């Protein structure tokens, strides 16, 4: 645009071009990623369903009805029933709240810690950098499962006594999963910081007298976020799966809380003659993970100002 200066003087009174902020620009770019837009719709629908679904579909999640064991989809039970005749739609909607909440919250914890550690290491350099990277390596080399068991044995009772069972388990699961998944994000962010802080635009900002926090927050971080967002989207999926692993070991939510992972676990023995039981929660996890990944893709494109997107 800057080069096209041949505008006629006669139209100088034309309305000024609307100023496009960086967020509007990002949205404009994001819209061009077709799959990301569709995925946003799908994820939005899923979130909406689990948030308001249980208000609309009011069948209880634990109503046992032996006359309706292992039924396929029908009008009474749109997604069929499990081996106790419990309605799967109600269970999936309810379990989705927990699975999604665990997924996003654990992701937030992991990314927050990861960005913090990575940013400090990348900006500070020297001894601080080395120490933080040692810490990261230390966490990467810890055997996760035994440590998880230890943490849960140590703190489960205190925490559940403090805030009640479900919330206690929620905090614990989120902290544990988030606390063990921040390392890749920290490394990514540090690498980005190391290269970005030497870039001309950063030097320019520094020359203009920008303070260190301003440099980090306004100039470097937004440019480093692309890969972090992709990592975050993968983390959501991993957290949903990790939660089901913990439930399986008897360490996560109680066995009667139908998280998606738990539903899959319960269904696996009946896979060959009641496939619907596993397919629907499986599809829910699949759609969530896939759409989050596409949205992550779209966001990376949209938020990377250096990337050229063809119209």
């Amino acid at each position, binding site marked *: 645009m800057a080069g096209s200066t041949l505008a006629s003087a006669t139209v100088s009174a034309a309305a000024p071009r609307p100023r496009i902020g960086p967020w509007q620009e990002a949205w404009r770019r994001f819209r061009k990623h077709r799959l990301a837009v569709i995925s946003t719709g799908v994820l939005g629908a899923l979130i909406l369903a689990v948030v308001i679904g249980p208000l609309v579909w009011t069948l209880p999640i634990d109503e046992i009805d032996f006359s309706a*064991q292992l039924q396929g989809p029908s009008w009474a039970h749109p997604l069929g029933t499990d081996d106790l005749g419990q309605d799967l739609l109600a269970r999936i909607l309810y379990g989705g709240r927990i699975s999604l909440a665990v997924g996003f919250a654990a992701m937030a914890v992991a990314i927050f810690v990861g960005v913090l550690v990575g940013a400090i290491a990348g900006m500070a350099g020297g001894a601080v950098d080395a120490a933080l990277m040692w810490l990261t390596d230390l966490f990467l080399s810890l055997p996760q499962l035994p440590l998880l068991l230890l943490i849960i044995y140590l703190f489960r009772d205190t925490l559940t006594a403090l805030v009640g069972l479900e919330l206690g388990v929620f905090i614990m699961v989120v902290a544990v999963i988030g606390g063990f998944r921040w390392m890749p994000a920290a490394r990514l962010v540090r690498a980005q910081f190391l290269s970005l802080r030497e870039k001309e635009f950063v030097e320019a900002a520094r020359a203009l007298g920008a303070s260190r926090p301003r440099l980090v927050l306004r100039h470097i971080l937004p440019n480093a976020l692309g890969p972090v967002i992709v990592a975050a989207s993968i983390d959501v999926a991993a957290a949903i799966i990790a939660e089901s692993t913990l439930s399986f070991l008897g360490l996560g939510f109680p*066995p009667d809380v139908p998280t998606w992972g738990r539903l899959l676990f319960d269904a696996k023995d009946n896979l060959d003659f009641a496939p619907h039981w596993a397919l629907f929660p499986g599809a829910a996890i699949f759609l969530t993970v896939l759409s989050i990944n596409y949205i992550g893709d779209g966001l990376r494109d949209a938020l990377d100002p250096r990337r050229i997107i063809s119209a």
Partner: protein
Amino acid sequence: MYEDDLRQMIGRVQRGMLSRRGFVKRMAALGLTAPMATQLLAITGAAPAAAQTSSAYRPTRRGGGGQLKILYWQASTLLNPHFGSGTTNQDASRVFYEPLAGWNTDGTLHPILAAEVPSIENRGLTEDGRSVTWKLKRGVKWHDGQDFSADDVVFNWEYAKNPAVAAVTSGSYRDVNVVKVDDYTVRVEFNQPTPFWADAFVAAVGGIIPKHLFKDYAGANARDAPTNLRPVGTSAYKFVSFAPGDNLRAELNPNYHLDNRPYFDTLEIKGGGDAVSAARAVLQTGDYDYAWNMQVEDAILKRLEAAGRGKVNIVDGGGIEFVQLNCTDPNQEVDGERSSIKTEHPAFRDPAVRQAMALLIDRNALEQFIYGRGGPATANFLNNPPRFRSPNMRWEFSIQKANDVLDAAGWARGGDGIRAKNGVRLKFLFQTSVNAPRQRTQAIYKQAAQRAGIELELKSVTASVFFSSDVANPDTYTKLYADMQMYTTTMPQADPERFMNQYTSAEVSSKANNWQGRNIVRWRNAEYDRIFSEAQGELDPVKRAALFIRMNDLVVSSNHIIPLVKRPTVSASLNTLHPVLSAWDGTTWLLSDWWRDA
């Protein structure tokens, strides 16, 4: 009717007018099972308690059978019969260690390290029921080549009864005296007339460990013995390798004391996984020869059986799936231990709450929809042999009645629908092992309880932790750090004495005995203790049965124990395999006689 008829009939057997089999048959018609009937004959000297044949073993030479692969979805963690809490450890120890005798499924004794089963005629038993003399088999060698002798047997008694050793088998040994008569004869002496003499050195508690390898570890250091993990026994298969919690390998013992046995060259017992995959590995894919304890919904088993490769073996015994309502408070710590007998459970001390809990489980649904062939509903804790089965207990499922009982006892519903009284809320932690039928049962129980204003918080612990004998772990079933729990307990003998001792006060599981006591629910009742010790000395089989029935009634009507369904042993095997199974002994009790169609 009873006593006179019985004596007359025994007399006819003695005079040869009635065959032993005829006697057992008639007894069965009177509700007396084969095990007890044969014991009866043995004690009165009319017949040996041993059966003529235990198995139809056909191979004519040792070895050549290739590999035998057995799946145990709960893996064993140690290989000492005196420390094996839980069936898996007992069965794994039994692969290497043999007792003097084991139990056939018809309830008769099968001599293994004994030359013969003691009876009145061979002067193994005395009329007063105060001693048993075992003649040992000669020429038996330990796997390391040393000779097996009476010294080993006596050593096992000293070892197991020593409180410093903290053996789980101590109950069978601490009240008897064992005397070495000569190198191949030992005498077990009792303080009082003992009707059930086949306890010490028999079946699961009877595995004989070698004196020469354990004598330096017969005290507080017993757990450190290297041989605990590298067994040297007398059995048909000798040790190759063991990964605790994973797999166990053994190979043919070329010097085994029975001809033509064993059939298989090597043996692998793979542990871990879950019951359904184990069932698939045998019935569907045929990867394994035998899978233990098919705790799988019957519908799934039936579908797998349809593949035609294998079959499901159902052997009715004394196993029972039941719920325990903790007598002590799991949330209060006393002297470094929770669920201490110095405390009392705040809610379950009220009989009304326990009665309501017993009314809230729908056993019919469990049998019909979950366990199928593998779990007929029952109201009794002691179900077999049938002569010990109480006719007095009934079970009922009624949410309405439970509500009435709780209302009458003053447990009022709070704002959240949960009943409370004097600040005690009816909210219980209900734990069990990870296992699909158990989680279904938990769900069914929880729903019914909810309708009666009781909240159950469910917890499932992976089986290898729940049933482990790990003293450091708070989630084991013997610790019972929960308000209630559910599991199956099995009855390893055809006599209920060792089964019913799990509710005597002396057996209370506590920190003091490393949680090895068998009374896990920590129920204590003076009348029960008295009747139990009376039954131990009662030689009259009819009176004795009545005492055991009374014990069952006492513990069941306390409602601290809620029997759910009987658990016959259900296992899966390939159609070509001929396992020798017994309702009254462990799976591996006669591994030497297993064989396969060529």
